[in-house]
């Protein structure tokens, strides 16, 4: 029996670039989050893939907001599924890199 996989189609770009979609496969375990999947990709395939998060699992920091299949979600709360899932940065915030957008309040940024 082959192990089920989740396929993440991740939109990547720097500011001003045309986004490209990269395809990553990760082994699927029930109960995992989309953030788990992205962290696994970073550890095993591409450490440069950018995503913002702090608390990982606690639903506390609210930093991991992005879009999955077009819907705005917290990556650590959205369950991974054994199928293709499209992962994109927030549409209404300035892009910093890949899945990271400028979500800091304006009075908490320097320079």
């Amino acid at each position, binding site marked *: 029996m082959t192990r089920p996989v989740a396929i993440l189609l991740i939109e990547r770009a720097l500011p001003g670039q045309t986004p490209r979609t990269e395809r990553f496969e990760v082994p699927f375990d029930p109960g995992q989050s989309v953030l788990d999947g992205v962290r696994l990709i970073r550890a095993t395939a591409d450490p440069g893939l950018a995503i*913002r998060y702090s608390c990982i699992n606690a639903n506390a920091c609210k930093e991991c907001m992005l879009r999955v299949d077009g819907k705005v979600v917290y990556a650590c709360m959205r369950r991974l599924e054994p199928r293709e899932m499209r992962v994109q940065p927030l549409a209404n915030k300035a892009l910093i890199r890949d899945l990271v957008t400028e979500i800091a309040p304006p009075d908490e940024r320097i320079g």
Partner: protein
Amino acid sequence: MPSPTETAPLHLQTDILVIGAGGAGMMAALAAAGQGARVLLVDRALIGRGGATVMAQMTVAVALGSELPDSIAAHFNDTIAAGRGLCDPRLADIVTRDGPAAIEQLDAWHVGWARHPDGRIRQAHAPGHDKARCVYVDFLNTGPAVSKTLRAQLQRHENLITRAGDLMITDLVTADNAALGAVGFALSDGRPVSIAAKATIIATGGLTRLYRRNSASLNMSGDGYALALRAGAKLIDMEFVQFFPIGHLAPRMIGMDPIMWDPFRYKLGGRLLNSEGRAFLADYGESADAGYVTTRDQATFAILKEVEAGRGSPAGGAWLSFRHIPEEELRAAFGPVIERLAANGIDLTQQDIEVAPIAHYHMGGIQVTPGLLTAVDDLFAAGEAIGGSNGANRLSGNAITEALVFGEHTGRAAAARAATRQVRWSDAAAAAALARVAATGPARADIAALVVELQALMADKVGPFRNEAGLREALARIGTMREQIGDTPPGQPGPYDMARIDWFDLRTMLLVAQTVASAALSRTESRGAHQREDFPAMDQDWTVNQVISLHGDELEIVTAPVPVLERAA
């Protein structure tokens, strides 16, 4: 390619630089501003969101006496007893004495402590305390409420407090053993940043990201310990990492704090069972009807010994069971949390869950005087970043109390210090650190994997149980990993470069891991959170602290007598 202007260094100046915006850092900023000082409060994540404070779901211990009559002395005595002879009683005295005022201050700022119908603040009984002493915000909302309250207060002092998130500090700048400020880089564009300050406060929290299974956020790599050590300050009690006994293990859950089962246990009395269905804590000294009293180090010991004896749960921990508790009682105690469990497919009336010890808190840290000053002039520290007040084991609920109380003390102390100082800045003193954050190095694909490898190494060889061979093996691998990562970060300064961030984290984690493993190797006894398989007994002669300093690339460890508290007559 980013244009050169985008990456030109940015230089900032302030009276007081606070590094880390958790409970300790936010309180420090508010207290310093209260004295009229200008403050720059920086965090590598968003303000008030990156650390342990916002994640803490449980309780804060203070002798408020609103549930039952209580006294500062009783809280102090429990704290000292938990520390197994190693607490700095001067620091424990400050925490227990000033705790109630901090809780009342937050109450006045509308944090929303849970109350009885008659208005008294509720206090729960957590393990290791002699009575109900722990305040909380329902439901499992203590840390988020504290963070939100402090963030709101920061906004009310915008004239004096500047907040800067997404700013990662990588080195302190010193001259003549005094702190001049710090160097780091802005995560959003990679730009190098230098900050001149009259006084600097380290409030960067703990180090539990060093371990494979942990309750840590991404930002708990022990940054403050490495910053302090490299700047010439000293670390104390680094061998004492607290493992939380009943961290969530299985089934996989999302959106829940992995240490969430603690309040379930002490509000409702969940039972810890081995694979034979036996409530095994009794075999390790917990009396059957005493309630939930086993301290964290004892419970961790009991669970790992059961697993070792082949009586663990399938995923390698223990079973935690609430099946003896009626559903109405579960709902009354935990309201919406029961729904969140259901969304994870967990029904506590039908099934047991698996728990295991996870790295949770660091007792050790930066050595400070009772005035919260480090061995470096004008450099202060507060919160989980400091060591000493908890000795070999921390009581449940004391960590947030100390973050708030020490934060307040450092803020005031740093403001008093800054009032007597001019800004002194030296480009020469900052040059090496600035060159590092501006450097361009070869791209590399192994950094995130090396972090994972270090976490496994620490868990397996420098975890709750240690022995000489394992510790030496860990130190040897830490040494070769350091050679592997070299002196230059990969890539070039740019927006949110996570491989580069990982490199700076690994640089920190390897130094901090070395201090933990080295102190664990030289302490040839077992005490509190430090258990040596080859020295299983506590040794009276080891009732001393170990103090670490860095000389070039060499760590020096010396023992020092535990300080004594001279109470004013």
